[in-house]
């Protein structure tokens, strides 16, 4: 085989790849022959090795802890309650809940809020439809709702009357939670918390 003439533009790339362990066995032999035959090749090799070493010894920074999850479940708890997690993820969350009192407490809070929202009575739309179908009264410039209430406020008032039967339309979450408890006892399966995480009364 004819002696290889070292050309940095052609062979330098082999040296870099050799240093990275990315050469084929045949290319490794070429590198060996080049280093055997040329002082210039040796200088090039050593210079590239110094650069590579400098890069690899750059200090590694710690990622700020605030950027990483803290190990708690965060917004996966809501998805867990709603049955939206796939089986594997559900198992992971369940396992974490066994070990983590913080997440169990957060889960209980979320479940209370969720119960309250889900227990809101349905709106009897026939009432509002009947009202909407009623021709407006026109006595001069007077409106049906006195006091200058806007349409949204009026609608809200009507809905409140429809669902509240004329009682105080201000809903209290605790009352709604009671609704839920009643529904849960009447409909087995309505409660979504696993037995291990029964929410105790506050």
């Amino acid at each position, binding site marked *: 085989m004819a002696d290889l003439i070292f050309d940095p533009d052609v062979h*330098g*790339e082999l*040296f*870099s*790849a*050799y*240093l*990275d*362990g*990315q*050469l084929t*066995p045949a290319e*490794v*032999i070429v*590198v*060996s022959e080049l*280093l*055997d035959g040329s002082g210039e090749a*040796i200088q090039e*090799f*050593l*210079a*590239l*090795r*110094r*650069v*590579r*070493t*400098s*890069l*690899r*010894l*750059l*200090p*590694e*920074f*710690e*990622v*700020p802890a605030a*950027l*990483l*999850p803290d*190990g708690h479940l965060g917004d996966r708890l809501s998805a867990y309650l709603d049955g939206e997690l*796939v089986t*594997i*993820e559900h198992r*992971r969350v369940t396992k974490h809940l066994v070990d983590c009192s913080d997440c169990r407490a957060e889960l209980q809070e979320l479940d209370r809020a969720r119960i309250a929202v889900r227990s809101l009575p349905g709106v009897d739309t026939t009432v509002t439809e009947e009202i909407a179908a009623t021709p407006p009264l026109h006595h001069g410039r007077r409106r049906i709702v006195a006091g200058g209430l806007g349409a949204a406020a009026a609608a809200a008032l009507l809905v409140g009357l429809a669902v509240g039967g004329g009682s105080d339309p201000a809903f209290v979450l605790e009352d709604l939670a009671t609704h839920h408890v009643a529904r849960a006892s009447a409909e087995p399966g309505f409660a979504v918390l696993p037995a291990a995480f029964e929410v105790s009364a506050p």
Partner: protein
Amino acid sequence: MTEELTPTWEDVAHRYGRKIYNFAYRLTGNPDDAADLVQEVLLRVRKGLSSYQPGSFDGWLWRITRNAFLDGIRKKKRRPESALPEGDHHDLGSSPSPDEVLASIRLSDDVQSALLKLPYEFREAVVLCDVVGLAYDEIAEATDVPVGTVRSRIHRGRKLLRGMLTWPI
């Protein structure tokens, strides 16, 4: 099956967060940009894990990381080492000498400054290889170019750095 192969995004955050942070830090020299990238990548990983097909996770992750980085810029802007065949190559292994190690540590600020002067493609390839520690085929997958192009970019990047750095030894 996928339970074993597909990590959760929290696993990814803890296992790769530091690498992603250092990747961005070395490419930009800016800790705020690095922090932004970690957040963006973790968000994309969280969204993308449900559709991830088990395969080269590193290739998948670093492609996401690279795309997130480039998107951020647009808004603002190993195999085991082969031994040489038998022969007298005294100091010509891939392991640096102790003097080289000491000199390199002293040089780190200069190296960072020089990195920032490299054309982006070279800087990216060098950082993925020497800072992140990816093999050439993984870099090729992450950057969507052939392995030969990766090899060329890494060498040209190092050669440019060599011209910019002065050595105290």
